[in-house]
């Protein structure tokens, strides 16, 4: 991917926040929240979030129900706008989608074949034979190339989420926002999906933001774990464990303990 410069700034306050140079190891940034606040009526959901995520980083966002982590994701995906503060996105490359969203449910169109569902991820990017070829390629990567022309209703829950993952990734996004997409899967399918997600992320190097309840999942997958509590970032923790990571290793367990202490301490 060619280097993206920092050009698009979405500002939501009367006085625009001056864009500061991104500070990150790769020298470029996927997105940054600066003093982002989100209120629904009197209820403050996000209360001054500052979060700078370099391109290609895998961030897990953890918090109890109602802490505002899903709202954070919706802001990132442009489904909602901050009440104040600014959200800065790195510039997108030509022919790529910028941010893609993976929902808790697969949300496949039941009346479209598997490959047509993946092509939805190329809306406005590619069409026709080109779109089909790209969709088939990414289906191969998630291991469903042979199911391309079937209806979604005949797939299992895990397979449906794999199609949804293919749909999210087919446009080669800079940012992939994941809203507990593995929450409804059984434990074994879940681990399989985590490994698939990690493998594709390592290959494509998009910035991933995974909202999850599962602390073990967070430390197994992420470079960085952000704990949100009462609308603020309560903990911002690097996960300095080399990949491939071994599930249940002492290093991961220690990190898990730190995070759980912060959540319930």
């Amino acid at each position, binding site marked *: 991917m060619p280097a993206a410069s920092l050009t698009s700034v979405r500002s939501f306050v009367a006085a625009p926040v001056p864009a500061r140079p991104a500070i990150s190891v790769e020298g470029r940034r996927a997105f940054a929240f600066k003093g982002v606040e989100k209120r629904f009526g009197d209820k403050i959901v996000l209360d001054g979030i500052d979060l700078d995520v370099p391109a290609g980083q895998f961030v897990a966002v953890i918090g109890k129900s109602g802490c505002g982590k899903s709202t954070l994701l919706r802001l990132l995906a442009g489904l909602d706008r901050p009440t104040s503060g600014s959200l800065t996105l790195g510039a997108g490359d030509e022919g790529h989608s910028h941010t893609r969203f993976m929902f808790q449910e697969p*949300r496949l*169109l039941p009346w479209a074949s598997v490959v047509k569902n993946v092509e939805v991820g190329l*809306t*406005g990017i590619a069409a026709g034979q080109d779109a089909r070829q790209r969709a088939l390629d990414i289906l191969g990567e998630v291991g469903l190339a042979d199911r391309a022309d079937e*209806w979604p*209703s005949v797939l299992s829950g895990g397979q449906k989420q794999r199609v949804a993952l293919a749909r999210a990734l087919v446009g080669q996004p800079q940012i992939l926002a994941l809203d507990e997409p593995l929450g409804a899967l059984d434990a074994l399918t879940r681990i399989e999906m985590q490994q698939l997600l990690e493998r594709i992320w390592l290959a494509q190097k998009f910035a991933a933001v995974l909202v999850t309840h599962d602390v073990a999942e967070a430390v197994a997958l992420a470079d960085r774990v952000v704990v949100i509590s009462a609308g603020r970032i309560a903990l911002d923790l690097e996960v300095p464990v080399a990949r491939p990571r071994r599930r249940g290793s002492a290093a991961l367990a220690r990190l898990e303990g730190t995070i759980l202490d912060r959540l319930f301490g």
Partner: protein
Amino acid sequence: MSFSARLQANAIGWVLPVLVIAGWEAASRAGAMPANVLPAPSAVAEALWRLTLSGELIRNIAVSTARALAGFAIGGSIGFALGLANGLSRLSRGLTDTTLQMIRNIPHLALIPLVILWFGIDEEAKLFLVALGVFFPIYVNTLLGIQSVDPQLVEMGRVYGMDRRALFLRVVLPGALPAIFVGLRYALGIMWLTLIVAETISASSGLGYMAMQAREFLLIDVVVLSILIYALLGKLADSLARLLERLSLGWHPAFQNG
């Protein structure tokens, strides 16, 4: 299901009608059923032959079918358009739905005296009644179909960058289609019912007219023949709708293996 298996499943549906006709023929031959109450199936078949040869039957069926389809096209397209408009636009729904629901509760056949006063016994009268009868099932089910489209899928479409047109064609319309087909099949039933009633009361051609003429001349075999033809035409229309349904709803779990 293979073709022959499907044929078998369809054949089962015809066992009962054939048995009824056989029993009826036997009863007539044995004299248990007087011919002036109900003529034997063979007599009805003779009437069928006679009217086919004279061309009268084909002409009347053609006239009735043309009326039915014209009325269906008018009422169905208005119902479909309004159903879409009211499903997609809150303003349009607010403006028209209350009125339409009030009109819906008037049995459309109760308007026959008024319709005769307005249009006489011309073609317009029958078209108007059929169109009105067909309008509501199509309207109500199109509206229901659009309102019941999964909002999560609509949100997905928006997030993935579909514009309004793509959202409608790829998410909303396919999602509403099963309900629209329910409306279509219901409307086809109402279409025949309305037309026959209208033709029976006021017409100078068509199947309903043929049956009424036959009654005047006490040709009870022709009356029975007309009634049987209604049954066949109704079944034909329903089968066509089901075929369309199977072709366009192949994705629906209810139509797989079917």
